[in-house]
């Protein structure tokens, strides 16, 4: 299999000032980690709130009593919704993994066949599994 690199001579090449590239990279990092930071912040806040709720029962009841009381008061609607959401998310992630494996299996074959038709065929530059390369993140 021919390596997955862009072997075609560059007929078009744009010039980009270094400061602009650098600014974009910095802002790109902010964008990338900004989303993760918001997610982590929301999760930490929720965990902290759950912790303070549990702390409110400290010294007033035993752990077994507390768990039983809470379990007895869990809303069936919320419990079913959460269970369905978790199942669906799990199924999606499982399917996503299978999809990646299938893509990896087919990519080499498609590339070989297309190169027979167009020897200068260029590639997208993503990984063989169809995901973003680490260097492009």
């Amino acid at each position, binding site marked *: 299999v021919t390596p997955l690199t*862009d072997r*075609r001579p*560059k*007929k*078009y*090449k*744009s010039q*980009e*000032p270094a400061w*602009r590239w650098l*600014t*974009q990279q910095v*802002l*790109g990092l902010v*964008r990338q980690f900004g*989303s*993760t930071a*918001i*997610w982590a912040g*929301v*999760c930490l806040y*929720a*965990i902290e*709130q*759950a912790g303070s*709720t*549990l702390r*409110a*029962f400290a010294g007033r009841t035993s752990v077994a009593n*507390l768990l039983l*009381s*809470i379990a*007895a*008061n*869990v*809303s069936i609607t*919320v*419990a079913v*919704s*959460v269970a369905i*959401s*978790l199942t669906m*998310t799990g199924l*999606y*992630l499982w399917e*996503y993994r299978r*999809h990646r494996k299938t893509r990896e299996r087919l990519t080499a074959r498609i590339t070989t066949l297309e190169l027979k*038709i*167009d020897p*200068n*065929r*260029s*590639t*997208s*530059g*993503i990984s063989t599994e*169809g995901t*973003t390369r680490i260097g*492009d*993140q």
Partner: protein
Amino acid sequence: MITPIQGAEALQTCIVVILAATVVFKILPMYRLDCFRQKMFQVRDELFDYAADGNIAFDDPAYILLRVQMNAMIRYGHQITLFRALVTSGIRWVSGNEHSLPWYDSWEKSLANLKNDEVRRKMAEFHERSNTVAAKHLIGGSVVLWAALAIAAMVLFLGGAAWGARQLLKAAARKVLSGPIDQRLIEEDAVCSKA
């Protein structure tokens, strides 16, 4: 004093918030990016088949440029966001470079050089399709752009546009993706990142 009922409700709320945040910030973007790449690959495969049928040469500048654009969109699909579009637009404005569209100019020139009208129309159609996929990806990932799209559609509707919902949304998307978020800048940005 907190009762067991209140405690259970508080814990349920915390669990739901964590799950919702995970879906919104982690799972959904992953799914959207996967869909976007899949759709772009589909257009690129159709372009390849079109060239393989002998309609256009594989070394024709129009084919090469369009393939480069699609490859760049696929590779940098995760960067097609409102934030990045606005940043790119701002940087171009600051550097006084806002009218420079090297890829787009080359594309227009190569398209004009195509002798066959049918091939030119078909290549323009492929370009339009790849842009539509990118536009949907950009708008779909931003609540702000969803709101802007709704407002633009409403303005067009109230302005007397007698279109169907699909046409109305397309025209609204064109209105939204003009000005600071010029769609040509998105593809230009992607191609520049690749070069």
